[in-house]
């Protein structure tokens, strides 16, 4: 139902090819960690899965059929640049989820349903550590707080497919760990399919059931944007590989070694 099949995906912007020959199949319930050099096209890939942008060619199947080329409640997203609704307080941002879900003519739920939604929202606010910021507008929240709010909002939507673009980048280690727990919990509970972009290889291995590396295989030094990135490494994690520092080091070494205008050799930090 929430299976994702991508075949021969290609994405170009004008002359520049960003993605090419991307093939990947994810079964329902998988947790894909995407890593890759900055600017290689990970966000673009997520935007295509979201339906916000359309592939230039190739097939994308989500669930039972070709992807609906628009965002739907089936797929939830946390953007790289945290985006919450600036005209609503933290609490209202979360209540909005139930309001939208109801689809009623007033775009708002009432009575018992609203009370339930409020309780749920309160609980979620507490879980992401924003209970005290309930009535603040996003403009008064710190970067990390906005990001947590965005995550909470998306999780409340209970999508079958969850798309996360560097969701924990702006969080301190303590809260990040809590958010990891929260995400894992909801993922086991609801069995959704997760696609997460991250730059933290440890995080990729800790949370994912599979780690995908995006990178360029072909290269034209004259015209760096002639070729796009594709999936160069696809590692299924079980309990053993997850713990293996060998794999971790391997992936870490892969990331950031094929920048188009690479001038020096790098190692992972």
């Amino acid at each position, binding site marked *: 139902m929430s299976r994702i099949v991508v075949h021969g995906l290609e994405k170009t912007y004008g002359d520049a090819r960003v993605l090419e020959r991307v093939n990947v199949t994810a079964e329902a319930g998988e947790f894909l960690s995407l890593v890759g050099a900055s600017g290689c096209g990970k966000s673009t890939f997520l935007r295509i899965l*979201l339906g*916000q942008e359309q592939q230039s060619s190739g097939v994308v199947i989500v669930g039972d059929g070709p992807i609906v080329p*628009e*965002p*739907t*409640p089936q*797929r*939830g*997203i946390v*953007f790289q*640049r945290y*985006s919450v*609704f*600036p*005209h*609503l307080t933290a609490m209202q941002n979360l209540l*909005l*989820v139930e*309001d*939208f*879900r109801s*689809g*009623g*003519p*007033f*775009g*708002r739920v009432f009575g018992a349903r609203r009370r339930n939604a409020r309780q749920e929202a309160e609980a979620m606010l507490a879980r992401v550590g924003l209970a005290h910021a309930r009535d603040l*507008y*996003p*403009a*008064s929240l710190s970067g990390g707080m906005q990001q947590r709010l965005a995550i909470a*909002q*998306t999780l409340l*939507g209970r*999508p079958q497919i969850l798309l996360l673009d560097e969701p924990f980048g702006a969080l301190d280690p303590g809260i990040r760990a809590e958010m990891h727990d929260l995400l894992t919990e909801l993922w086991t509970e609801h069995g959704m399919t997760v696609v997460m972009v991250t730059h933290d290889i440890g995080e990729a291995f800790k949370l994912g059931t599979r780690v995908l590396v995006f990178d360029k295989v072909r290269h034209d030094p004259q015209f760096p944007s002639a070729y796009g990135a594709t999936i160069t490494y696809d590692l299924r994690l079980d309990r053993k590989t997850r713990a293996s520092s060998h794999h971790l080091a391997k992936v870490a070494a892969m990331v950031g070694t094929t920048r188009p205008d690479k001038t020096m050799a790098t190692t992972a930090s």
Partner: protein
Amino acid sequence: MLARGMGARDEVSDTGGEGTMRPSLPRPRVRLRMINAKVSRGGALFLGGLPFLFVAIAYLFASAQRLAVNPSDKLLPSPPQMWSAFLDLATVPDKRSGDLILWVDTYASLLRLLAGVGVATFAALSLGIAIGFIPRVRAFLLPFVTVVCVIPPLALLPILFIALGLGETAKITLIALGVAPVMVRDIANRVMELPAELVAKAQTLGGNSWTMILRLVLPQIMPRLITCVRLALGPAWLFLIAAEAIASTEGLGYRIFLVRRYLSMDVILPYVAWITLLAVITDWLLVRLSRAISPWAHPLEAR
């Protein structure tokens, strides 16, 4: 370029106790970059008053000069002349109708203005959002609105009056037609400028076109709509005056038009001042409204 002595905000007393917003030590006497030098409340009042003062003085001077040459000059009457003419209109019942002309005029005009701008605002809101948000409606209506926007309504007055009669409908329609297209286009532009991410996100949360309009577009566009109305009020008064000049028996514009033939500036100028006052009050009320409806768009600490 800077008015000296206006940078005096660093002279705050250094007695500010605990928990006060003021620094507890005197600020250094620095000369801030022009764009950072904030203006105190008093300074703002003083500076803001200057241009008015200047205009007033220029008027008094020119008026005195003209009146010295020709004591019955009508173009630039002296303030007492204007005041007495204004007082007459405001307090002495008209001989024919027994009405207090100023108030009758004001009431009639404000009603028309309210109706006209109200209709235009409603059109701007509904059409603007539809055009800005729904590509098909945009394809359907934007070219038409763009074209209508540039048709001078005054040129089509005869058709308008014949189609709608000479009554209030025609006047209100003229005002609405006069200001609506610009408002529609402006709102549509703003809706199109809404961050694509927010719209995508709303859809992933289950928003459909209608609920997104209700919960996302409408509240976000509200402050702009109010700004739009504020900007439209100037042209709206213009159209009101034009409409009243053609057919009506009361109204501020009617009165101005009536006495314009006689160059009765002693009536026109107070009327213009009165219109200005009414408009400024409206403007102020709209700002308050915007703050009340959309507190998020007016953070406490402005840059």
